[in-house]
């Protein structure tokens, strides 16, 4: 049974086990390695992608669950909001090891698409599922506010 996917605007067919987590299809089959494996149990957020604009932990979602839906990975980010987030991340040098940052940026972008002017509490709620072992959290918070200000300005 084949699963038809729409990844970053391109139609892709996957012929393997439909229970395969989306993460491994994205990484191993499609070669989009910006989305990371961190825990495999939806605890760390390193694998976060957008499905129809909502965040999804791709390590714990079977690929069959996203058939026919719009999947966006870090490589496919193109919206004005996403670009503002990525720019703020670079401007503030948020990253350290960087491994979690694709997931952080995906979560932050989804937040700002919904709430262009988030409070600190909004940020806590939206970002608490994304672990950063380097603990870049202070800069993540600052970068979300900076992106928000840029989008408003």
């Amino acid at each position, binding site marked *: 049974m084949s699963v038809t996917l729409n990844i970053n605007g391109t139609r892709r067919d996957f012929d393997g086990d439909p229970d395969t987590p989306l993460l491994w299809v994205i990484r*191993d089959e499609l070669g989009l*390695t910006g989305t*990371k494996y*961190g825990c495999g149990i939806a605890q760390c957020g390193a694998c976060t992608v957008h499905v129809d604009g909502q965040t999804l932990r791709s390590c714990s979602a079977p690929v069959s669950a996203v058939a026919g839906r719009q999947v966006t990975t870090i490589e496919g980010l193109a919206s004005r909001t996403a670009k503002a987030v990525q720019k703020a991340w670079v401007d503030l040098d948020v990253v*350290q090891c*960087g491994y979690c*940052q694709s997931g952080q940026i995906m979560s932050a972008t989804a937040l700002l698409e919904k709430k262009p002017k988030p409070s600190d509490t909004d940020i806590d709620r939206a970002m608490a599922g994304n672990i950063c072992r380097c603990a*870049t959290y*202070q800069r993540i918070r600052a970068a979300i506010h900076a992106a928000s200000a840029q989008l408003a300005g």
Partner: protein
Amino acid sequence: MHPLMNCFRTDEQRRLMELLGIEESTAPLLPRRVFLQSAGAAGLAIGLGWLVPTNADAALPGAEGAATGPLAPNAFIRVGTDNLVTVICKHHEMGQGNTTGLASLVADELDADWSLVRTEYAPSDPKLYNNLAFGPLQGTGGSSAIANSFLQYRGAGATARAMLVAAAAEAWHVPPGEIRTSKSTLTHASGRRATYGEMAAAASRQTPPENPPLKTAAQFTFIGKDRSTPRVDSPSKCNGSAMYTADLKLPGLLTAVIAWPPGFGAKLVSFDATDAKKVKGVTDVVEVPEGVAVVATGTWAALQGRRALKVQWDESASSDLDSEALLARYRAQAAQPGMPFTKPTTMSAAPAAVKTIEAVYEFPFLAHATMEPMNCVAWLHDGMLETWSGHQFPTFDHMFAAKAAGLPMDKVKLHTLVSGGSFGRRANVWSDFTVAAVNVAMAIGGRAPVRLQFSREDDTGAGLYRPMYVHAVKAGLDAQGRVAAWQHTIVGQSIMAGGPMAEMMIKDGIDPTSVEGVAKSIYDLPMLAGSLHSPTLAVRPLWWRSVGNTHTAYVMETMLDELAAASGRDPLAFRLSLLGKSPRAAAVLKLAADKAGWGKPRRTGVAQGIAVHESFDTFVAQVAEVSMRNGKVKVERVICAVDCGVPVNPDVIRAQMEGCIGFALGALYYSEVEIKAGRAAQRNFDTYRSLRIHEMPRVEVHIVPSTEKPSGVGEPGVPPLAPAVANAVARLGGPRVRRLPFTRAGLVET
């Protein structure tokens, strides 16, 4: 890694070089003095004598093995005709920002345009790329990257600049002294102008100067200039293109996972691969020294294959290994004197003490839990082996990979990629993940390149933990409220024991990493009588961001706080009275206290705690502002003062302090690996918890302006955090927490 490694004696260096197959004649020796002392020893009125290297210090490895490029005067730099400057980084980037730091050292002396600077990671070659603090070893650790490279990389940049200037002088028939350099451009008052790229070929024909002059601090363009050199790795880490080991693509690359022993010391009895081999995509199921490897065309198939694999283990050897039982044993040992690690100059005379505090402290096993679980790609082909990984300690990884493959070292090529965190995990003298990958590649007969990938559970359960430690302290005050007695016994595994550095590091039965921070303390405590027990276990120990200081700072700084309270003195004033011999420690303490408004009244339910510690030659003081509600703790704000000598990249220093604080706070709150019936009980982020964004305090970092030699920042922000928070909790009327993590005391939500 640890700066104490620069205690290498000459004969030890020689032995190690023999072990590594390095010919002594070609290996750069440990410089006797990387830094000259300041204070006008060289008669320099500006007191920056150490900034100027001696001839010997400035000597750079020759062009041998250096990357090709029109201008490649040494192993660290090349300037292309495309006008790009490439800096070859000998240190491993795991987030701490040293790639940016090394590049900025070269770029400053070269007068390069920062936007034209690129970086590459060096191959494994200790003759060219050894860590000057480690002797003949190439490796990153002990917060030493910038400290050991400070003159070397500046010298590399200055050499290239001198050659560019000489070439321009020749071409323009003007004295070199009249040529100015700025932003990768050479100019002369006559109006002549050339980019570095245009002059690179001519410069390559110049003789590299023996001892190029280095800038004075006043001439720096990047060093110490805030935000002048943004991180070189930010763009690639924000768009998903950064290449980690997990992301490497090679033709025909297979993925392997290993069925690891379920418990420490468990032995493989037998396995049945029938069902595993039925999983679509599984290509091989092979026994390796580590366990049973399941190799497949993709990660999910490998994981499914492993799930289907039937393995029988013999766990009898360690089934009685249990954290609680171990703690009881350690506590009993701590009540007995061990190997002495101090020679007190004042007798720890109990009669002089009129007030005594006795305390036992307990610290759990800690996993590093890097975001990227361990991995390595190995490819045997054409009589050689290539590996790709976050090779933090290439010299050991190289040696052990060659040994595992049965190849000479010159048939083994390491490629070092950035890694998704390390915190000590990727720098290990066992090279566990590298060797395991090579073993899998061998077991499939070198048929294809193979990536060994640890799952999160494999990674957390693998051991190589910050060991469990118990400290027993009995300290007393005399009638004047001065510290009169201090007996201190530490129990815990030696990190060095059993490894290739044991002989070099362990003296008179004392592993310095077990006692650092107590044996070598900033405080004037001549009466301190310390002793150490170093039990051995089936669980492999490893350094964990700031090593021994992870536990010693907690004990020293909370005990001093208790003594201050017992003597009725302010914790800041009490510490300062003992810091006469450590002016830099006193200065950061005062700075942090001042910026935090120490001593000023706070709102109800909020208190501040303070701590200071020196590690890796860097001094850090922190004031933690903590609130308590319904018995639960929240760290609201941390004010941090750091003295790391010349601050090379202030924003990276701030970032490291912020990161150290969050990393240490997560461990203080939640982190613990318990061993039950020989197995690690916590395996993933659901039970081995980490700090999350809503728990991150506001962090303010204040950097002491300094002309002292630079020291590291990757680790020294960790040690003071936990005691500063614990001291604040006590001031709020909470318990004196002596067993970590805080979950044990019910101080945080579980």
